[in-house]
């Protein structure tokens, strides 16, 4: 299908663009396959205003059709939370533009999306896509080579469709065992290594829930795999990101948890982290609260409380702190999982790594962490970020787990402003890119899908681009001083701050 089929009116003159903190400007509006382009030739800014259609979350239109005036107004609510308004002369033009935006912004075919067309002069498709592979990552960690190996068991994505082709597993466990263990885990996501702690020699692993079901099925291979991690004598912790009640209920639908009797040496702790719809609604309420026009502090605080967003931030950080404590202070290995192992498990494991690992706190290290723990590990970005806080579309799989991660990282950086190599603008940029991007990094739901659609060959990688010299400078923290120590955040409510990043009106007030 051609984009032009969706475009009934490509150009409109004398459109007025209104956006927060700018004077309304009159100019020409142009709709293309992927963008809204607004230019005011007579204006002071030579650069046209460019809006990715994919960024539009909700569109509202109102038209006036009188003999004297025929005009319309389109309000665009973007996924990056910005709200714009277009005053368009001519009712028909307005309706045409609106319908073009509606259909073009909701195109679902991955290969038609803008990253497949984005060809900036400073990047080449020949460049390596992604920062590092599992093999390269493994090669860098000499200290784990005795106990751990890279397994290619998933090379054709048949063992776990959402895992990358290579994963790191205990040396003593062969691929055959892995295949069997995978059958016992939802989506085939058997326990894999995500972090090795040099000082204590303990690890953080993640997986999905075991499929023990109502009949308390066992899987010898899965037990062996975990046994190999703690090597018999020691103790390990399983941090289940569901409440114990939820974990019990999961058995009714074929899921479950690791029972004490089958997994000797493993102690299970439950910390309930919200995800899915609950989290999405939390974000919607938060953004609604931030945009509240009543100017009442009481109303704001009550809405903020009601959104529960900061409670989610608090729980995520405290669970990550618990994982880090097990590893660093108690010297025990940890397995993190919830149910699918593609959302809260990733949130907890990546936050725990930021707390513990100085390497993950550099700009490149942090992007590497995101690549390993989110992109390669199969966080379903396309499903989770299909819509943001304004959409009226019925929610399906949307959940701002990644945005929650960014807020938690922001809280960490606020408490340890010298320990992070990257700055707040990076987090804001990522929050924008994850919903609508020129780059292919956050397209698709898994590595497999990325391969099938040719994302790695035909789009550019955001992380690579962010590490180019001038971008790197912009996103680096000028006060950064590496510390080898763990950074333990305070999770007391007064220590956690609400941020105006969720407000539709974001502006650096200090313009000096």
């Amino acid at each position: 299908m051609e984009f032009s089929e969706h475009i009934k009116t490509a150009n409109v003159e004398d459109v007025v663009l209104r956006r927060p903190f700018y004077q309304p400007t009159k100019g020409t509006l142009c709709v293309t396959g992927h963008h809204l382009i607004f230019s005011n030739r007579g204006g002071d800014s030579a650069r046209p205003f460019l809006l990715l259609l994919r960024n539009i979350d909700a569109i509202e239109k109102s038209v006036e059709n009188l003999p004297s005036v025929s005009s319309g107004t389109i309000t665009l609510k973007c996924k990056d939370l910005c709200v714009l308004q277009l005053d368009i002369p001519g009712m028909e033009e307005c309706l045409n533009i609106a319908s073009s935006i509606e259909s073009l912004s909701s195109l679902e075919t991955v290969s038609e999306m803008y990253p497949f067309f984005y060809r900036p002069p400073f990047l080449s498709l020949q460049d390596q896509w992604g920062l590092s592979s599992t093999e390269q990552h493994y090669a860098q960690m000499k200290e784990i080579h005795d106990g751990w190996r890279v397994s290619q068991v998933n090379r054709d994505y048949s063992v776990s469709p959402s895992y990358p082709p290579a994963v790191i597993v205990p040396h003593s466990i062969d691929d055959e065992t892995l295949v069997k263990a995978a059958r016992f885990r939802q989506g085939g996501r058997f326990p894999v290594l995500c972090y090795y702690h040099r000082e204590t020699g303990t690890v953080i692993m993640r997986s999905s829930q075991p499929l023990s079901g109502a009949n308390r099925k066992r899987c010898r291979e899965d037990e062996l795999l975990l046994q190999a991690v703690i090597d018999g004598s020691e103790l390990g912790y399983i941090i289940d990101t569901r409440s114990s009640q939820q974990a019990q209920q999961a058995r009714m639908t074929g899921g479950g948890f690791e029972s004490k009797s089958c997994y000797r040496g493993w102690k299970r702790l439950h910390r309930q982290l919200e995800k899915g719809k609950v989290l999405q609604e939390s974000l919607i309420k938060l953004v609604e609260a931030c945009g509240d026009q009543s100017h009442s502090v009481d109303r704001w605080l009550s809405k903020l409380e009601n959104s529960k967003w900061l409670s989610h931030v608090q729980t995520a950080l405290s669970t990550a702190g618990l994982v880090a404590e097990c590893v660093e202070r108690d010297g025990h290995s940890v397995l993190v999982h919830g149910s699918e192992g593609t959302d809260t498990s990733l949130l907890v494991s990546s936050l725990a790594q930021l707390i513990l690992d100085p390497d993950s706190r550099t700009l490149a290290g942090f992007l590497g962490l995101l690549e390993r723990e989110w992109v390669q590990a199969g966080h379903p970005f396309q499903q989770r970020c299909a819509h943001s806080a304004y959409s009226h579309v019925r929610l399906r799989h949307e959940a701002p787990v990644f945005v929650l991660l960014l807020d938690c990282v922001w809280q960490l950086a606020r408490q340890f402003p010298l320990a992070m190599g990257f700055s707040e603008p990076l987090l804001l940029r990522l929050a924008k890119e994850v919903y609508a991007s020129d780059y292919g990094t956050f397209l698709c739901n898994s590595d497999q899908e990325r391969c099938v659609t040719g994302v790695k060959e035909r789009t550019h990688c955001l992380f690579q681009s962010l590490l180019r010299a001038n971008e790197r400078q912009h996103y680096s923290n000028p006060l950064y001083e590496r510390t080898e120590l763990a950074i333990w955040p305070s999770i007391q409510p007064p220590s956690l701050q609400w941020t105006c990043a969720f407000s539709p009106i974001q502006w650096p007030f200090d313009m000096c």
Partner: protein
Amino acid sequence: MEHILTPKVEEVQLLDRYTAKKPAIGTLYLTATHLIFVETSCNTRKETWIIHHHIATVEKLPLTGTGYPLNISCKNFHVVHFVIPSERYCQDVYHSLLRLSQPAKLEDLFAFLYNPKQDEDDRRNGWGFIDSAMDFKRMGLPNEFWELTDLNKNYELCSTYHSELGIPKTARKDTVLGSAKFRSRGRLPTLSYYHKESNGAICRCSQPLSGISARCLEDEEMLQAISRANPNSTFMYVVDTRPKLNAMANRAAGKGYENADNYSNIRFQFVGIENIHVMRNSLQKLLEVCAMKSPTMSDYLTGLENSGWLRHIKAVMDAGVFLAKAVADEKASVLVHCSDGWDRTAQVCSLASILLDNFYRTIKGLMVLIEKEWISMGHKFTQRCGHVDGDPKEVSPVFTQFLECVWNLMEQYPCGFEYNEKYLLEIHNHVYSCQFGNFIGNCQREREEMRLKEKTFSVWPFLWENRQQYINPLYKCSLGREVLRPSTLPLNFKFWCGMYNHFDKGMQPKQSILDHLLTIIQKRVEGEKKMTDFQRKLAVMDGVLADECTLKSRPPEQTLMPPVSVAHTSKNMQIKEETIIQLAPTAGSKQI
């Protein structure tokens, strides 16, 4: 000293307020001025000093397994929980602290004891360090519209005002006298801030004694004169900072607000800031939230909302922003009052001054502002801070709220202020500590009667001496006289953890950008000093300069911010780098 029954108690436990950590064990000392706890349980000697006047409440709790608990909460929001082994000692300490924290007479305050080993000249010069009258000169007074009058030199016109008042040039003496009679406690309309750029003025006063229908021609003339003093506007605002209901209730008592029909060309406006009693209760509720042991996020946010504290802060800020906009954008003059004009009026006028004038965003400027709008205009520090045993209903955190508004501005304009958060906290500490004479007394006349300038020291030179600590390294004075236009969206008002949880280090950010930058600056100053020394030595060795001892030593430079661009030869650069390396043994790890 007669209040100290037991000067020393051993085996006292200091409990951790939030965590279940093992309590610290140590010795408690009571001196004439301080309560000191010296920890003996750890290897390093850790001391906790609390100045008696900071103590707001002392509370004895029922016996626990380990002893007799004694809870102390301070006016600077330090909260300590002691457990004292014997009942008698607990009783003694309790009674001593009650008497010491709030003496019966002003003469028993710390300031009258405090002697920093300075001579009389230093003391006198110290009191002259900040002169609020000079600020009128800075604003360009006297000019063709405004002049200073000494009509109040014996405090006959208004006992709670300063002796020098700014009034419009066209106001006749009988107008001024008549207006003063028509204003509550004689607090007539007088100049607070004159904005050169727009000719707009901010004036302040107390409520008129208008009752249901009374009017006063002189007062009407006075407002007319203020309005005429601004050729750029045909009208002036009269801002009543109270909620309308409160103002109306005052009418029944013969006070009230201006009837716009009687005054020509005024625009009357209520801004709805609550009174001192509401503010006191609100702070109490806020502190209850702070005292919650591991609250959930919901408990905390609900508590914050119910306290109403941030709502009140926003109300003060909104009013300040209203004033600044009126003066800067509409070029109009504004007359501000509440009931007596010494609480809300002081908050609002001083906040507007900060928004309008960059000078008040400097270290010295804030001193001038506090001196001018608070001390000399009769904010009742003795009563509002509860320095001496008195009516608890007169205590209210009005000044604290002003500082909190400034802090909120600093959060929005991280480069707009010469001073940092520590400066605000230190001022707040000294307002309550009574170590210096500045914040003792309710008005200028009282201070003169107490002869504070002869018996106590001024805090301003002391703060100025230590100004290195209070510098904001990010300050850009290039903002100039630009008017600040802060966002007053509710979400921009944050809980001031640095004030209310100042002593709960675990809750503060673990690394401080401010401390980090101050250390870097300190190192740079030291490094550059060392470099100059090396250069001189080098020059001496090369025979370019005469020997050091024959040279007159340069006067010690007290640069706040060392010049950024110093021309270096490559040789000098090398020396400089070496020095810095030598001087930088501490890593960031130390701060964690």
